[in-house]
């Protein structure tokens, strides 16, 4: 069992504070959804936890199994068990998916230890079969010229290969039609289990029809302002974010 604790986290880009004291604990096996309108700091939260150099954590803590990860570089955080599924994955021309994932696997091995290539390909192909991804995919350059759906499936494939303890999924549903959304959700549901904790960031309730969360949080102006179970997502869908805004205004008035 693993635990990811985010404690009173403050994140700034340059001088501007975006995340303003966010607290959340995720246990392995749980799926948490963070919902909120655009510009409320959802993506900033995920990138800051993953270690993007443009985001400064000004105060607070992020603990993985009780140990702070804030002094670690992005690659060290990944090797410690974090995974970020990008909203807009980078295109890497000239680097095939197979070589890219191989380098990621190799990075997880001790120095001087060589990856067993045939075992690696066997595992890669079995994951691809599981996610119903064509094997030709592996020789294509990472995300180059991919459709929105292909990019998201490529993210899911990487997650399946790297088997993180916690996956931060940033707007995994953005830019997807309903078929692509279903494929991506199936992928996440396939991996769901006692060894994986998921933080699902989304703007719309739609994704949560396919990936049913254990907990739902509403993020507003850099904080979590409301938490509940999956019914909160439905309530939000029905009442809109203005409902939260009015509640907040009433509370602070």
């Amino acid at each position, binding site marked *: 069992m693993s635990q990811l604790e985010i404690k009173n986290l403050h994140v700034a880009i340059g001088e501007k504070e975006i995340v303003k004291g966010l607290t959340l604990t995720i246990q392995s096996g749980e799926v948490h959804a963070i919902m909120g309108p655009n510009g409320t700091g959802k993506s900033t939260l995920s990138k800051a936890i993953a270690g993007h150099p443009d985001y400064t954590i000004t105060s607070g803590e992020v603990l993985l199994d009780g140990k702070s990860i804030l002094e670690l570089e992005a*690659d060290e955080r*990944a090797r410690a068990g974090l995974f970020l599924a990008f909203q807009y*994955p980078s295109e890497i*021309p000239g*680097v095939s998916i197979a070589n*890219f994932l191989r*380098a*990621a696997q190799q*990075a997880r091995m001790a120095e001087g230890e060589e990856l067993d290539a045939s075992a690696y390909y066997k595992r890669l192909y079995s994951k691809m079969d599981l996610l119903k991804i064509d094997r030709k995919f592996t020789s294509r350059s990472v995300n180059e010229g991919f459709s929105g759906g292909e990019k998201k499936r490529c993210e899911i494939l990487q997650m399946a290969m790297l088997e993180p303890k916690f996956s931060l999924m940033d707007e995994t549903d953005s830019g997807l039609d309903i078929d692509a959304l279903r494929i991506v959700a199936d992928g996440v549901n396939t991996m769901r289990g006692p060894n994986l904790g998921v933080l699902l960031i989304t703007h719309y309730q739609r994704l949560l029809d396919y990936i049913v969360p254990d907990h739902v949080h509403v993020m507003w102006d850099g904080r979590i302002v409301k938490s509940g179970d999956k019914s909160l997502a439905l309530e939000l869908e029905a009442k809109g974010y203005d409902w939260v805004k009015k509640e907040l205004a009433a509370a602070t008035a």
Partner: protein
Amino acid sequence: MSTLTAPQTIVGSFTAEAFAAQLAKQKSAPAWWLDRKRAAYEKFVSLPLPKRTDESWRFSNITTLTLDGFNVGGRAGISTEAPFGPAHLAFANNTLTSRTPLVADLVGRGVIVTTLAEAAEKHTELLKAHFMAQPQKQGSEKFAALHTAFVADGAFVYVPRGVEAGAPIVITHSAAGAGAAVFPHTLVVAEENSKVTVVDYFVSADSAAHFACGANDLYAGHGAQLTYVAAQNWSRETLSFQFNSTVVRRDARVQSLNLHLGSRQARHESLSQLAAPGAFSEMLALTVTEGAQEFDQRTLQIHQAPNTKSDLLYKNALRDTAKTIFSGLIVVDPDAQKTDAYQSNRNLMLSDAAEAQSLPGLEIQANDVRCTHGATSSRIDPEQEFYLQSRGIRQAMADELLTFGFFEEVLNRLASEPLHDALRELIKTKFKK
């Protein structure tokens, strides 16, 4: 009162005595070759070293172009293993040290892979027509003359009309021992509708300073397809010159790829002449720097006939305090209408202390042409780097992957997968150091 002094002649180690000694060894060479050598030596002596004000040496470090401290005809070293498989011809310190015969079938169909010395005896007219027959005017006339004067052997590849030579013909040239001066030469003649791939591999047997002054002549006859790969991996102390001359006849296609890894300072001059309609020359190069290396690449694409095409793509990955210079010129002769010429130099800056200079140029005398050129310098995209790191890949490895990604556009132009892979592996060795 001022005194006039005779222009100083600089020959360094390449003295008249050294030349005479070298000439004496070529007893069986035909008179025309020896005459060319004598004329070249005179030219070498008469020409000055490049000067700071020479446009063709703009941005180059000319203070390090020394001719001193080298020796010609040192003992042959041991040929170094080629990453391209067994060499058909292996030269060490200008001497043939081993050869792998061509398959009988190709020999039967008239394909010739032999030494220049042997070709001078048996195929003298072919050699006379193509060996160092093209003009040399890209700034290194003194060094090119030195090459012509001292080159005594090299590779001769001839593919007759309509014959496909199949697997790459591999030639290695190595230098061994402190101060060794080598003059590698490869001549490829691909006759009408023939097809051939030739690989030249240049390597040092040790880490000593060498002087390498090599040339290759590529000739593609009507409809021929010639692929030429040159991988330069001399020691890090070597001063290297490479001169390429490519002649492309009607509907022929030449693809050349130069990989630059070694040397302290390496100058590469490449000349493509699109001599008849339908001719196509694809000029590719990849350079990986380290330390304070300098790579100086000068190219000339001359369109002499209508409906000809040239496509140049030179990519440099710059690390440490290294420097690259690219100077390219596209020349379109007055009657070369419908020319399609492309020239691109792209630099990936992996270090803030590295320096990339780019001088693209056009000289167009026809009015119905399509010529594009461009140069870019860019750094590693931090978002791409973060993407790789977020998968657990360490920064150094991420940068290496991104550099290979940057090179892939060039390597992918090669039709041969084994060649592609061999070049990749060779580039990797430079990252492992």
